[in-house]
């Protein structure tokens, strides 16, 4: 996780943040792919949204523009709405089928 390939490790560059963000995005993506619990899948999506936010704010800092931070605020708002609706869907499915396993929620499969 040294990043940037520079000799001086004391200066944190944009590349450092991009590498951390990429690793976090990968963790979230793998979580979406391998977990069987619907709630953990939603949490992994939150990890990916946070990785995107970190990218946005880092670019905003290093390019001297406030636009990235405003988009990050919008992403946080969208994550809140997504969590509310996603959890409501989980509650409805659990009430009807008593399952939170994504393999058992296959009514729309065909």
């Amino acid at each position, binding site marked *: 996780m040294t990043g940037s390939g520079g000799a001086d490790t004391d200066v944190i560059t944009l*590349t450092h943040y991009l590498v951390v963000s*990429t*690793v*976090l995005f990968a963790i979230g993506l*793998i*979580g979406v*792919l391998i977990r069987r619990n619907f709630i953990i899948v939603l*949490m992994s999506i939150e990890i990916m949204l946070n990785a995107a936010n970190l990218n946005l704010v880092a670019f905003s800092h290093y390019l001297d523009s406030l636009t990235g*931070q405003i988009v990050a605020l919008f992403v946080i708002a969208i994550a*809140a709405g997504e969590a509310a609706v996603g959890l409501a869907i989980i509650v409805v499915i659990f009430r009807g089928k008593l399952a939170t396993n994504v393999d058992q929620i296959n009514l729309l499969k065909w």
Partner: protein
Amino acid sequence: MSAVFFYYFAAVAIISGVLTVAFRSPVHCGLALVTLLLHIAGFFILLNAEFIAAVQVIVYAGAILVLYLFVIMLLNLKTEERVFHKRYAVIGLVALAIVGQVAILVLRSPYAGAPGEATQALVLSVGHTRALGITIFRDYLLPFELIGLYLLAAIIGAIVLVKTPAMQERRAQAGADPAPEPPRNGSGEPEPVGTGVGDGLGGRGH
């Protein structure tokens, strides 16, 4: 000094991200996710985005995670035996792509673009929250209002989704034929306590 903080935040964020995906119990996953979100807020402070950091702590760690934990405890989930899919080929593919991406990031020359007008000194002199507020209400007013509309739609959608079937049934019955309502109400209520309170509730339910 800031490099030390950066590496601390990076290490803890990545470790807690892995734990979020790897823990078996959903409650433990939620707690690991809180740790991750707080350290991302630390990154935001390192990047001089104090307002975003505060929003991250209040909205994400405070509100969204509490919502997750509410639902986890409401559903009373049991920890399953098998928590993972066996999709090693897909995971390997993703991991390969990510390693390639990181290699490209590390090997490329430093990223540059046209710098904006909001330099660090200017933002610090105005104040970060004030600068952000002026920008969001001057240049991004329409997206801001659309986000408000989106949140309203999400609230209404969530409420409509989780409305209990019993309530919908009762309303459908009341709408279809109000005539057989009084006998059902009289017989279904428990007698000793249903004299005054039951009538009041029944009247409000229609």
